[in-house]
Structures are given as C-alpha cells and as structure tokens.
C-alpha cells in the first residue's frame, strides 16, 4: 500500500472491504514514522498505545459486520496546540514542555465520536507564531520535499506529516496563514474554514479573533470530509456559529462559476515562476468556460500592517495566562533564584519559558495596547480591518471566489529569514487578509517552480465554505488533468 498517497476515502474502503485492518494500517504508519521522522521531525510526541487500542476497537466493530463512520480507524496527526485529554500539549513551547491536557478540544471530541485514530502530535512554531517552524522550542521540522528547506509554518509539522505519508490527514490551525502557507510549501491541501465555523474550544489561543482550526489533507474531498466532521456551533466557544450547511456532493456547473483575480496579488515580490503556474491555471479555467474577472483589493496593501497590530495585541492578552502558578514551566520553587513575590515568579518563569518570537510579540502587543498608543495603533488597525472586510464583501457581489497565489515564494532555506523578523512576516502577505475578514480559504498544490511545490489559494465569501470546497475540487481536477501536480 502506498501510504504517501493514501486518502481518507481509499483507507475507508480498504477497511470496509477488510483488505487491511485499522491496527495494520496504524502500525504501518508508526513504523514509517520511526524510520523516517528522525530526519523530518514532524512529530513532537507519538501516542502508539492509545492509537493501536483505538484501532483495535474499530477492527472489532468491522469484524462484527458493523458499518463504521468514514473516519473510523483512520490515523490522523494533530497539531500540538490542540488538546487531547491525557496527552501532552506543548504548543512547541518550553513553558508547556510537560503540560498534559486535562480535557479534549471540541474538534477532538467530534473526531473521537467518529472513532478516529490519533497517531501523534505535530511540531509547530511556538504558540503558532511563525512561518517556518524554526521558532519551535524543540527544533524545526524539515520539508519532506527538500530537507534543506523549511516546511512553512506554523502548522509545519502537520503539513510535513501529511506530505511524508506519516498519517492520512492532519489538523492544523490558521491565524494568518498557518495552515495554507505550510500546505503550499509541502505540496498538500490546506483549508482554513470561515471564522466561527469550527469551535476553538481546546485550541491553545494565540489571537482569538483570527484563530481557526482546519484540515491538512491530500485532496479536496478529504478536506471536505474533515470539515463536515469538525464544524458546528459549540456552547464552549461563544464565537462559533450554528447553521445549516450545504451538501458538498451537490453538482455545480463550471460555466456558472465567476472567479476574481486581484491584481494586487501579482505585483512586487511574487516569484516569476509561481506567477507563470498560476496564470497557466487561470488560462485553463477560462478555456473550460469559467468566467475570469480581474478585480482590485486595494486595502490588501495594509493588511499585513493591520495584522501585526491586532494579532500581537491579542497575543499579549491571551498569553498573560502563563503565570508560572497554575500550570506549565515555573520558577516558583527554584531556590537559587530567591523568589520573593508574585512579580518575581512572573518575570522569571515567563522570561525563561517563552522563546524570542513569543516574547517579541507579547512586548509588541503590550506596547500597542498601552496608554497613549491604543487609539493610534489598535483602534486604527480595527478600522482598517473593517475596510478590508468591506472590500471582500463588495467583491463577492460579483464573483464566487477569489484566486491568488498562496505565497510569494516557494519554501525557503533554514536560517534565510530568522535574523530579520519582518522578512519572515512577509511570507504571509497573501494569507493574512483572509483572517482579518474571517473568510474561508484553501491552498491547493499547483505544480512546481524550481523543483518546489507551488500553492494556489482560493478565497470564499464568509460561510460559503462548501461552495469554496466544491469549486476547489473542480479546479483540483483541472490542475491534475493538466499534469501540473
């Protein structure tokens, strides 16, 4: 069996037809991880016993002739900022090195109901802050396509695990591109649902008005399957939305589709070979009868600046909970430090437990929210966010989806951007607007440039996730026919 290509649908059929058991499948993945993950480092921890135990349960049900859910018995990898009860959840931070989750995230609860098998927790940038996994407190993940290059981030471990064939699918989280950018760098599918579509309960918070959990998969069908499994309103996340969703399997007419191509996403900084790939797909779509319209999103010029105000502001508030007293790394009992009061515990524990990028963003947020700067920075950024959202709403009056490159460059080399934080931030230039608007977006593999995967991003209107996935599936088929991927 080719584990690298194995999709959810295929795995489910293999299990149902008893061509393979869930235990065999799980052991096969674990064997591969043990042999190859030393080089890639996609995982921070494995759950071998628990995975096999769960796989056995599914096998017993299948042996009895019971019908099982589509995700039953299928091995998945979970980003390490999503809580699985009884398993470590470090968010790749030293401050949570020994933290064991006391409850399940809602998405995990939902996947458990479908009897999914959790094979391990994946590496990431510390607290999801970064675009390369180089900010992980436990060493970077390498891109399975080229070990000298980063897998992207922050969900780099999840994207690498899917690409390397260490799991059938993975969960990631996306605050400014953290699912789509690594999916693009590794050549897999990454889907960020609309803000509010998936419960964030049990996701270690980074920036609460931007964070969203989503799948990283081998194709669009699988992304739709996971989205169906994890979406839905949740009492434990008051920003999640209860609604009826359309049926992904309904047919759509290619000649009815209108796609907007924003000229601002093809200007300065875009790699010429990436542009060539994306333009070739656009030409192909037009030939198939899709209506292509050039559009303009002028405020996207300021999206990254607005993002680097709103995100750190929320980060500084969210990460205040790491106080060295309730859980996580603490200097409270370090006798060498002469801890005398509460402030000492905070300063020492947080100073030692957080990495550079995390401290940078906490300080940035603290500064931005401090008296005298709040209006000039934070309030201004929130107003620009409104303009960005309005601009998307306006464009979606005349097009169904927006098509752009996912990233301005392909996967870069280790160390290339670590000395200059700003150059790293620019890796997210095409993805952050989507989070500010709360819109759904997906990155699809779209051939190669200089031997490295290229990602094509499709952006949908808020809560038109299903329509976005349907169109994405059509485009995926066209890209594959064309021999791009």
């Amino acid at each position, binding site marked *: 069996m080719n584990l690298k290509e194995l999709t959810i649908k295929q795995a489910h059929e293999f299990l149902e037809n008893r061509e393979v058991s869930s235990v065999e499948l799980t052991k096969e993945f674990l064997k591969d991880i043990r042999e190859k993950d030393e080089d890639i480092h996609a995982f921070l921890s494995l759950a071998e016993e628990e995975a096999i135990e769960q796989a056995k349960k599914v096998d017993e049900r299948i042996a009895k002739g019971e019908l099982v859910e589509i995700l039953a018995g299928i091995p998945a990898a979970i980003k390490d900022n999503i809580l699985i009860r009884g398993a470590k959840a470090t968010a790749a931070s030293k401050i949570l090195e020994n933290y064991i989750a006391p409850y399940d995230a809602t998405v995990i609860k939902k996947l458990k109901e479908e009897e999914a098998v959790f094979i391990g927790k994946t590496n990431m940038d510390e607290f999801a802050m970064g675009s390369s996994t180089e900010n992980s407190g436990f060493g970077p993940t390498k891109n399975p396509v080229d070990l000298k290059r980063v897998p992207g981030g922050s969900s780099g471990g999840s994207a690498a695990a899917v690409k390397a064939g260490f799991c059938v699918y993975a969960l990631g989280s996306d605050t400014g591109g953290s699912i789509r950018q690594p999916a693009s760098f590794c050549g897999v599918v990454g889907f960020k649902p609309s803000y509010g579509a998936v419960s964030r309960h049990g996701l270690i918070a980074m920036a609460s008005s931007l964070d969203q959990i989503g799948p990283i998969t081998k194709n669009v069908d699988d992304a739709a399957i996971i989205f169906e499994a994890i979406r839905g309103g949740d009492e434990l996340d008051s920003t999640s939305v209860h609604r009826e969703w359309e049926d992904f399997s309904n047919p759509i007419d290619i000649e009815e589709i209108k796609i907007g191509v924003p000229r601002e996403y093809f200007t300065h900084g875009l790699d010429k070979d990436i542009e060539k790939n994306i333009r070739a797909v656009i030409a192909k779509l037009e030939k198939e009868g899709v209506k292509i319209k050039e559009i303009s999103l002028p405020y996207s010029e300021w999206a990254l600046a607005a993002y680097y105000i709103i995100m750190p502001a929320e980060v500084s508030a969210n990460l205040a909970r790491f106080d060295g007293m309730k859980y996580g790394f603490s200097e409270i009992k370090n006798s060498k430090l002469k801890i005398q009061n509460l402030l000492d515990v905070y300063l020492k524990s947080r100073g030692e437990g957080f990495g550079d990028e995390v*401290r940078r963003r906490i300080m940035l947020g603290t500064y931005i929210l401090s008296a005298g700067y709040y209006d000039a920075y934070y309030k201004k*950024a929130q107003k620009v966010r409104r303009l960005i959202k309005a601009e998307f709403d306006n464009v979606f009056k005349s097009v169904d989806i927006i098509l752009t490159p996912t990233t301005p460059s392909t996967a870069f080399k280790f160390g290339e951007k670590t000395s200059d934080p700003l150059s790293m931030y620019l890796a997210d230039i095409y993805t952050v607007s989507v989070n500010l608007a709360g819109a759904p977006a997906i990155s699809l593999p779209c051939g190669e440039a200089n031997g490295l995967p290229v990602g094509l991003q499709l952006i949908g209107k808020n809560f038109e996730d299903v329509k976005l996935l349907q169109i994405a599936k059509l485009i995926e088929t066209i890209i594959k026919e064309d021999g791009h991927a």
Partner: protein
Amino acid sequence: MLTKKEVEKIAELARLGISEEEKEKFAKDLSLVLGYIQKLSEVNVEKIEPMAGGTNLESITRKDIEVKDIADDEMKADILNAAPDKENGYFKVPSILK
C-alpha cells in the same frame, strides 16, 4: 527607534524577564516592526467603525449551570496536579501583601 529604557518598561508591563543583551536586540527588532506598522497612517479611516471580532455575533450568553463536560472530578484533579505548588486543593502562590 525604541530606547533600552523603553524596552525595559515594556518588558516589565508584559511581565517578561529579559537579559541585558536581549534589551538591545529587542529594541532593534521591535523598532523595525513598529516602523513597518506606521504604514497604516496612510489610510483614511474617517467615519469607519472599528471591527472588533471575526463574526457579527453579539453578546452570546449561556446558562450559568455546571456542565459535566467542563469539569468532572478526575479533570479537577488533573488540573490541580498541573500546578507547580499547591496545598489542600488550592494553588499556592507567594505573598502579595507584605
């Protein structure tokens, strides 16, 4: 450009311990990012309302009742056991008042 003194002040407000060498590095890094976000001064936001969240939902409430999903006894024990210092079912912290 932020001064070392300003970085010290911000770090203290953020409750972060940073070393002497780090102060200079953070001053440089933060100034770079602050320089970049000044870009927003180019945008005219007159009469625009700030957008606070990711959805249009407002003031979502739930009944204030104990739900077993949130805390069973085993979970309570796990939560408390994660604390570095505790006593009789409470988190133990250094004195606040002298």
